[in-house]
Structure formats: C-alpha cells, structure tokens
C-alpha cells in the first residue's frame, strides 16, 4: 500500500540530497525537483480512489492518534497535493531553462522545499505541525523572493518577511491558547472538545488564527506584501506563489474555520471580507501599468472570490470555491509562465513594451490570451464552470444579501475582463510590424505552457472530470463529525 507520508518525506529527502548530488555534477541539481514532483503526482493520483472512499489516516511513530502527529489524506488533502505536484512539476520543467544566473543550486533546493511545505500543510492533522510546515513554506518563499538579489527583490522580501513573521507569531499565540484550553494539539481532538468551553474564549484563538493565516492567504487588510513580492520574484516563483502558496493559505483558513472551530457565526464576516478583497484587488489591477503587478493584484481579486465562495458554506458554494482554486492555480501559473519569457525577451515590465508580441512570440501570446480568458471566466476555459458554480451557489442559497453581493462579484469580473482585454489588444492589435529579432520561448519552456493550456481547455470542456473529487472534498470540509470520527475512531 502507498503511504501518504511518502508525499512529504521523499521530496524532503531528495532536497537534503541535492547538495550531495551537486558534488558529483552541477547538472543533476535541476532535475531533482522535477523527479520529486513527478513522484508526488503519481502517488497522489494512486491515492485518490482510496481517499475518496474514506480519509486515509496515518499516524507517525505508530502511537494512537491524539498522542502523536497524524496525517489525514482525505479528499481535500489529496486534491490539493495533486494540484501542488502538478503545478510544481510543470514549473520545474519551465525553470530548467529559465533559471540560469545566481545561486542556482540554492534555488532548486528552496523551490523543492517550498512545495514540501505546501504539501505538509494540506496533509497534516496536527495544529502545531501545520505551523511548522507553514513556516517552511513561508521562509523558503522569503528567500526565493530575494533570490535575484536586486533592489526590488530584497525590498519586497523584507516587507514580506516582517509581515509574515508577525502573522506566524499570532498563530503561535493562538496555538498556545488552544493548548492551554484543551491540552491537545490534534485537530480532530480539539474539534471534538471545542463546545466544552465558552464561546468567547474560543473566539480569540480563532481570530488570531485567521489573522495569522490571512497574511499568507492575502485577505484584504493583510495583503500589502503580495503585489511587491509576486512582482519582483523570478517569474517561475511568482507562478508558484500565486498558483500554490496563497491557495494553501486559503486552505488553512478554511480548515481552521470549518473543521477545527466549526464557526458558523464568522462566515458572514468572511464573505464580506472576500467581496472587499475582490473589489480592491480588481480595482488596483485595473490601474497598473506593470504587467507582473497587474497579475499580482488580479491574484488578490481571485482570492477574494474564493473566500466569497467558501463563505457561502453550502455544499455547492464550497464546491465552487475549490473549483475556483484549481482554475486559478492553472490559469495564473500559465499567465506568469507566459509573461516570464516576454519580460525576459523585452527586458521591461511595462505593458506598453508588449506591443506586437502576438506576432513576435505567437505561442507565448496565445498562452497568455488563454490564461486571461480563463481567469475572466469565458467559456470554454476552466474559469467558466468554476465562476458559474459560484454564482449558482449564491443564487440557490436564497438570501437577499447574496444577490447584492453576486452583483458586486459580477462587477469585479467586468473590471477584470476590461483590463485583460486591454492587454490582449496590446499584444495583437498594436505596434507596427517591426523587424525585431525577438524569438519565441525555448521549447523546454513551451512544453509546460502547452500542457497547462491543454488542461485548461480539457477541464473547461469536461468539468465533470472533477465533480467526484470536488463533491467529496466539499463533504469533508462541511462534515466535521465525519472528520473527527475518521481520525479518532
């Protein structure tokens, strides 16, 4: 039987081994993240059928669950780890050619460890272990944002680090309070006992958790680091940060709210925060002239939308939110990867320098266009069914408030459509036919771009491929009792 612990341990071991491989040959280093993520993808796919029937609970050290750390590979965990492995694999193929300068060995190790941290966060069933993996994720992203070593990179890494460090301190305080209240760190055990103390003393750890995790998830008042960090990191890292890191943050927020605390009362607040995040993100994105900052702000908008969908907290709402996470991970990764080589070739981040790219780099521009259309939610791309599900979920919830909010969501989508169409117009219909020597991205970079395009199309046309997984994942989030029972028996 395949053990879910391998998803974390094998890439970790390979990451430790990279310096040793580096002694033999510098060329091997860059193929290791690729191998590790391929392994993870295969293991995740093998585990899906079993995880759908019942969450696989693995205890580490072989002691009974509340007394040791345990991993819970339910539908949610496996779904997320599969996405992480998929996007991680494609981006590491892209990075084979893209990362040439600076400390390349360090880059590959940190990149792999970032993905290990993300996988650990989604699989663990222990609250302090979640904190540790969260730190792995955060610290490696601080280092990777600063990887280029230029002014902008260092400055945004400093901002990111300070805000992230405050966030993780708050999480640690919340963990201390929870341990003091319940004497245990196991998520299921805490969830089982959460009703035994008064709600006010549980409320404080909850708020501290949401604030602390919200920094990484870029929920509205806490997202000041995001545009800087995402825009000044190397493009392959921006793709990972936008496509995976903030989604993992959202996962952690959802896990804390739905599973551990079962806090129905805070959902409305979350919903409003989501709308606010969405509108602010889209509005800021609209006024940007720097292409990577525009994409970063658009990520904030998308996070708002996901938060809105999760805040609806009906079965179809959560399904929509999870679907939107997948569609955002694929589309935003594609966008950043495509933009990466455009910037590399033109040497500028301004949108105006992209004029006429549709002729100079046809394949990359096509990829950008598809990613943009998918994010806006045009059929037949993956963004369409996910947005459709969210809107439908809000409408069938039959609350008058939701109708107003859904109008705001649509407003956000219109803004999004406006700025993405503007860029597509710049790409194809502007600029004279100059005889420039700009060539298209190399074939190694085009392979992952092409695969992402294909996935966006296929899932967009056959969304039913994912419904089984998504339904049981939403079930896991909403069914607290089932989760507790599956862990503690």
């Amino acid at each position, binding site marked *: 039987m395949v*053990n879910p612990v391998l998803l974390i*341990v094998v890439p*970790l*071991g390979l*990451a*430790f*081994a*990279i*310096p*040793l491989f580096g*002694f033999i040959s510098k060329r091997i280093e860059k193929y290791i993240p690729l191998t590790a993520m391929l392994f993870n993808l295969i293991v995740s796919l093998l585990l899906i059928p079993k995880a759908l029937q019942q969450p696989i609970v*693995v205890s*580490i*050290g*072989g*002691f009974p669950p*509340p*007394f*040791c*750390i345990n991993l819970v590979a339910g539908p949610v965990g496996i779904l997320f780890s599969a996405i992480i492995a998929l996007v991680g694999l494609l981006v590491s193929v892209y990075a084979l050619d893209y990362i040439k300068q*600076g*400390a390349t060995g*360090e*880059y590959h190790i*940190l990149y792999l*460890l970032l993905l*290990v941290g993300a996988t*650990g966060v989604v699989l663990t069933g*222990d609250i*302090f*272990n979640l904190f*540790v*993996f969260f*730190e*792995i994720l955060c*610290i*490696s992203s*601080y*280092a990777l944002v*600063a*990887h280029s*070593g230029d002014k902008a990179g*260092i400055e945004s*890494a400093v901002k990111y680090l300070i805000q992230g460090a405050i966030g993780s301190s708050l999480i640690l*305080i919340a963990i201390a*309070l929870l*341990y*003091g*209240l319940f*004497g*245990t760190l*196991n998520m299921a055990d805490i969830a089982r006992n959460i009703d035994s*103390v*008064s709600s*006010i*003393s549980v409320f*404080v*750890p909850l*708020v*501290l958790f949401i604030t602390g995790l919200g920094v990484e998830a870029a929920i509205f008042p806490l997202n000041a680091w995001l545009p800087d960090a995402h825009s000044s990191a190397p493009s392959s890292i921006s793709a990972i940060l936008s496509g995976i890191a903030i989604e993992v943050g959202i996962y952690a927020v959802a896990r804390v709210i739905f599973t551990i605390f079962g806090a129905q009362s805070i959902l409305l607040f979350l919903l409003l925060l989501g709308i606010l995040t969405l509108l602010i993100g889209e509005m800021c994105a609209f006024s940007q002239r720097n292409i990577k900052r525009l994409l970063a702000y658009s990520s904030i908008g998308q996070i708002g939308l996901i938060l809105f969908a999760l805040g609806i907290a009906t079965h179809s709402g959560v399904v929509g939110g999870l679907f939107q996470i997948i569609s955002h991970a694929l589309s935003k990764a594609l966008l950043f990867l495509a933009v990466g080589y455009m910037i590399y070739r033109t040497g500028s981040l301004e949108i105006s320098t992209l004029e006429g790219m549709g002729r100079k780099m046809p394949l990359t521009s096509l990829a950008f266009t598809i990613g943009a259309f998918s994010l806006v939610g045009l059929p037949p791309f993956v963004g369409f069914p996910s947005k459709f599900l969210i809107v439908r979920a809000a409408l069938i919830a039959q609350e008058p408030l939701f109708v107003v909010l859904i109008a705001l969501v649509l407003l956000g989508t219109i803004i999004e459509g406006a700025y993405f169409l503007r860029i597509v117009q710049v790409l194809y219909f502007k600029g004279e036919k100059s005889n420039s020597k700009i060539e298209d991205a190399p074939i190694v970079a085009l392979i992952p771009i092409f695969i992402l395009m294909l996935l966006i199309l296929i899932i967009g046309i056959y969304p039913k491929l994912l419904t089984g997984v998504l339904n049981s994942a939403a079930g896991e989030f909403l069914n607290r009792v089932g989760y507790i029972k599956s862990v503690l028996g």
Partner: protein
Amino acid sequence: MRRIISILLLGIVALGIILTLVKIPFGVSKTKVGKYYIDKGVEETGVTNIVTSVVVNYRGFDTLGEVTVLFIAALGLGAVLSTRKKKVKRKVEPASLILYTGCRFLFPLILLFGVYIFIHGHLTPGGGFQGGAIVASAFLLIYLGSRERRIGERGTKAIESLGGLIFVVVGLAGLVISGYFLRNFLPKGIPNLLFSGGIIPIIYIAIGFKVGSELAGIIDNLGGAVSRLS
C-alpha cells in the same frame, strides 16, 4: 498617529488574550496528552528524558520540519548574500595574541562539551539543538580568534545534507520495517544507560551535527563575507 493606532490595536489584542487566559489557570495540570507521555514515555521509548522522547519520537515529524526550517535559513542566507562580485581579499587585522591563544585553547573543550550534550540528550537535559548550538559557538570563537581561517564550505554542506538524510532514512526504515514512519524499531534497551532508546540517540546525534554545521555556516556566511566583499 501610527503610534496611537498601534497601541489601540495592541490593547484590543491584549484584552482578547486576557479574556481567554482567565480560563487557563496558572500552575494547574490541564493536559491529557502530556500526562500520557509522562506515564508511558519511559516504557514506550526507553528514554528517561521525556522531553527528548516527545521531541524525537512522539512529535518527531515537527522536528524533521524544524531541521528543514534551519536548512532553508542557512541556504537562503547563502543565496541572499552571494554576490557575483569578484572575491576581493581585504587585509584583516589579526586578533590579539591573548584572544588567539585563548580561542585555540577553548575550541576543543567547547566542541567536546557540545558533543557530550547531544550524545547524552536522551538521559540528561540537552540534545541535538542545544549541543549543536554549543558546537556552533565553538566555531564562533574560531571566527573571532583568527578571521582568515574559514570553515570548509563543502564540509559543512556535506554534514548538513548527511544529517538530514540520516533522519529521513531512519524514519523510512521504520516505515519499511513496521509500517509507521519514524517508528522506534530498534530494541529500547534499559532506561538510564547510554545505549538505550532505540533510534532516538541516532537521530539526535544526526541533528546535533546538522544543527552545529548549519549554525556555523550561518555565522561564517554572515561574517566571513566581510573579507570577500570589501
């Protein structure tokens, strides 16, 4: 303005925490997990220092993550500080004779002490992290005493990697032999003897070497680059 807002914010946080803290009285045992470890720890792991058994065995996965965090920090620091400038050898003022001799005299003693701490981690207070930090402080002395003498970068890197790999491999061996990652599959031995506790001393020694070389590498990278950068 900023100051007032911050203080207000802190006040709200403080009030909230105090409201929760009323429910957590000081000095009263309130845990069930901790009680289980105290009651069963020696029997189940063969280790007399319960904190060690919790760190390495019951919550060993956290420790694996923690070792990884330190690994990331050491690497990230190297990546951030590495410049593409050429190495410029600046003349470093030599340390005074007293400092130099003192450091050379103390270095092996401190090293020995650090190693003692992490070898006996399962019997007495201390363990891999504490011992590793002490080993690193011995290298700090070397750095203070004679600045030209730098620690071999390849050596520290190799020790870091090997330490991490030993941890992972021992854990995987548990998975293969008994079906649980990090399972203590070796004979537990008699508590209070040096050779007891199964895999725990092995892992703690690996951690000790790893932490020591990582912290020494951090000091070296932060300070050593002075002579390179000019």
